[in-house]
C-alpha cells in the first residue's frame, strides 16, 4: 500500500496522486451535479411564475369627485371590485374583498352595513368589523387626483391595513388616523 502510494507520487512528480486527483474530480462532479439540480429546481419554480399577468389593472380612473354623492356608491363593484364612500370631510375607496376568505360582501343601505354572503362577516361604512369571522377591517385603496383631467385615480395594489382594536362592538380603527393621504381625498 505505502509502496504503491510512493510510486504514484514519484511518477507524477507534481505532488498530486492519482487517487487525490480522482477524489477531487469526483467532488467537482458531485458539486456540478448538485448545482444542475438546484438550477433546474429554480428554473421549474420560475417557469410557474409568469412575468406578465393578463389580469384587470390595479391602477385605474373612476371619474371626477362630483360624480360621487354622500354615502356608499356600489356602481363599481362588479367591474372594479371597489366601493366609493364619501362623507362631509372627503372621499375614500374601500376594496370590496371580505377580509375573512375573500368573497365580495353586499352593501345594505337600509342597515348601513356591508354583509358577506359566504360566512356572514359584517362591516360598517368605515370598514370596521361589526360581526362575523373577519379578523381585520376592510382595506382602503390609495386614491389621488389626476392634475390634468381632475379624475380620481385608484390604486388597489396599495392598501391601507391598520391593526384594529377589539371592542365589545367589534374591531375598530380610529377614523382620524385613517383619513390621511394617500388613502383619502379631502373635499
Amino acid at each position: 500500500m505505502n509502496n504503491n502510494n510512493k510510486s504514484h507520487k514519484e511518477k507524477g512528480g507534481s505532488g498530486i496522486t492519482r487517487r487525490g486527483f480522482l477524489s477531487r474530480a469526483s467532488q467537482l462532479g458531485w458539486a456540478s451535479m448538485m448545482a444542475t439540480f438546484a438550477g433546474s429546481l429554480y428554473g421549474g419554480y420560475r417557469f410557474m411564475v409568469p412575468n406578465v399577468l393578463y389580469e384587470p389593472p390595479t391602477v385605474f380612473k373612476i371619474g371626477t369627485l362630483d360624480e360621487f354623492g354622500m354615502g356608499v356608491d356600489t356602481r363599481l363593484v362588479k367591474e372594479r371590485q371597489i366601493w366609493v364612500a364619501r362623507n362631509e370631510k372627503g372621499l375614500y375607496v374601500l376594496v370590496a374583498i371580505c377580509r375573512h376568505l375573500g368573497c365580495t360582501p353586499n352593501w345594505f343601505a337600509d342597515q348601513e352595513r356591508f354583509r358577506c354572503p359566504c360566512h356572514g362577516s359584517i362591516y360598517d361604512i368605515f370598514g370596521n368589523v361589526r360581526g362575523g369571522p373577519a379578523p381585520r377591517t376592510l382595506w382602503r385603496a390609495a386614491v389621488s387626483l389626476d392634475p390634468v383631467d381632475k379624475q380620481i385615480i385608484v390604486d388597489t395594489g396599495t392598501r391601507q391595513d391598520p391593526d384594529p382594536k377589539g371592542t365589545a362592538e367589534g374591531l375598530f380603527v380610529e377614523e382620524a388616523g385613517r383619513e390621511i393621504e394617500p388613502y383619502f381625498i379631502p373635499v
Partner: protein
Amino acid sequence: MKKSFLDRLSDRLTELVTESQIWKAIFRHGFPDTDVNRSLVVFTNVFLHLHPVKVRKGALKVRFAWCAGGLTFFFFLVLTFTGLFLMFYYVPDTRRAYNDIKDLQTVIFFGNLTRDMHRWAAHAMVFFVWLHMMRVFLTGSYKPPREFNWVVGVLLLVMTLVLSWTGYLLPWDQLALWAITVGSKMAEATPLIGVAGPFAKELGITPSNDIRFMLLGGTIVGQSALLRFYVIHCIALPLVAAIFMTIHFWRIRKDGFSGPL
C-alpha cells in the same frame, strides 16, 4: 369411458388455443391446478404480482368494513374512465367552460350520465377513504409494521381531497369561483410558503410569489387559475396518486393483511 363428441371438441379447441404461439408468448404457466402454477399465475402477472401469492382464508372475508379500501380504488377507476370521456368535450377556457358543462348535460348522448357518475364517484371516493381510514384506525392496523403504509394513506387522503377541490373549479359557475376564492385564500395561511402564514415577512413572501400565486397562476381566480386547476386535476394529481397507490398496495403485500377486509 369414451368421451362424447362435445368433450372431444372442447379438448381440441383448448389445445388449439393453449398450444398456439400467441398464447404461449403471453402466458408462462399451465392451468392453475397445482400449487406451482397457482403461484406462477400471481407472480408472472404485472397486476396480480402486487398481491400476496398466499393469503390466509380469514383475511379475504369481506365483513363489516366492506373492503372500503378496495371500493375507494374502484371509485378511483370509475373517476379515471368517466373523466377521460368528459375531457373529450370540456375546454378549460373561461369563455366556454360553463357552456361545455351545459352541453355535456343537454346535447351529448349519455353526457349527463357520465358527468353524474364522475361527480357521485368523487363524493363516494372521499366518503370511502374516510370509512377505510376509520376501519384501519379502529382495528389498529396502522401499528408497526404498517405505520409507513398509514403515512402513504394519509398522503393519498390529501391527494383525494385536493383532486376534489381542483375539480370543483372546472364548471366555472358562481359556486366554483367562490369556493376556489375561499380555498386559495386559506392556502395563504400556510407556514413558510403562504403570504399570511408564519415567517412570510422574514422569507420575503409576497402575494405574487406565495403558494396561492403558484396555484392560481396569478393573483385572482381567472383564466390561468382555470387552466392550472385543469392540468393538476386531470394529469398531475391522478398520476402522482396512482404511483402512491402502487406503493400502498405493494406495502400491503409486504406487511400482510391485518385481518378480514
